């Protein structure tokens, strides 16, 4: 499958942009429904499991892109050894379970993109997102999905937070079996090249396309 993605850049709150000038949220909308993982995607996961050995898992944190997310985690007050970056969490789970486990088409697509590019991708229900999506600092009392103290970094639209950054999306904004259009967003931090982020989004859309 070959197609051009219509990527757009989300807004970044002024205080976040001042602190992290290279922070960006690249996003793309597509028509896709969640569902069961088709055999070709399962096969891809199996091949990926075979290629992803213990040695590679140990070296992950030294690779440029996963390292950039580790640094960003540190800079925003998360210990990446306590709460793993998405690619390290996937690597650890691969070692624990013996393979990358298939769950459903969307989660598998996000997993493949994360492991192959190191870039975490978030997915929301496009029809339940209002206006443009971006990153900002939360206000006290906002829900994401639990009440926030204020000061947390969140992905948000014009109506409010969609999720705490790198956390699970609000149940009323995330993808459900009824979803017909998805909004895929990738957080780009300092040290992560544009091409990696584009590849991550392209990988998810391509994988979701394979299930259509």
């Amino acid at each position, binding site marked *: 499958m070959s197609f051009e993605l219509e990527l757009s850049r989300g807004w970044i709150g002024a205080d*976040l942009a*001042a602190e992290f000038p290279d922070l960006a949220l690249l996003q793309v909308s597509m028509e896709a429904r969640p569902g069961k993982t088709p055999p070709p995607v399962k096969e891809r996961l199996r091949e990926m499991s075979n290629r992803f050995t213990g040695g590679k898992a140990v070296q992950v*944190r030294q690779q440029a892109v996963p*390292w950039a997310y580790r640094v960003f985690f540190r800079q*925003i007050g998360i*210990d990446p050894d306590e709460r793993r970056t998405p690619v390290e969490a996937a690597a650890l789970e691969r070692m624990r379970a013996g393979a990358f486990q298939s769950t459903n088409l969307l989660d598998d697509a996000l997993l493949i993109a994360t492991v192959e590019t190191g870039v975490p991708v978030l997915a929301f229900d496009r029809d339940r997102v209002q206006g443009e999506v971006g990153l900002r600092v939360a206000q006290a009392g906002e829900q994401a999905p639990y009440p926030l103290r204020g*000061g947390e970094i969140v992905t948000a639209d014009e109506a409010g937070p969609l999720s705490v*950054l790198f956390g699970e999306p609000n149940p009323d904004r995330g993808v459900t079996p009824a979803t017909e259009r998805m909004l895929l967003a990738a957080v780009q931090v*300092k040290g992560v090249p544009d091409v990696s982020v584009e590849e991550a989004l392209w990988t998810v859309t391509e994988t979701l396309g394979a299930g259509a």
Partner: protein
Amino acid sequence: MALQLLEPVLAPADERAARRSLLDQIAKLEGELAQLFCTAFPRTGFEWGVGSRGGPRLLSLGELERVRDELAERLQDNRSTLSERTWQEEQKRCLVEEMLLEPEEHRWERISNAEIGEPGCKHWHVRPRYGLIGMLVGWWRVVISSGCPLAKGRGQSAAAR
């Protein structure tokens, strides 16, 4: 909530430079710590965690300084631990060579892979050839184990064997 209502809290310009410098230092230290982690693997007994600050959120200048200081401290501790460990491993490697050259001088000595900083379950063991006879006559040799035991499940197939 409309976005216009959210008032950004921007740091003053002089603090901005200090914050930028701290963020760069944290990045550098994190890189060095990641490198050290890979060098130290598969050795165990290292502490890699640096306290979380309840993120994701923008940290204050003081918090950034504490993250930087803790990373530097962790790096220093682990570097000295690794240095000490590699020195001990070097001594053990020399001992393995001596055991191979003169096994009778190192009777019953046993060195494992872990002691020389290598993965796996292999070990070198100085034992007498032919058991008691070898002990009495002084025929000693180094026996190298065949590695880790094969993985066997405890399920039905294992029981059937």
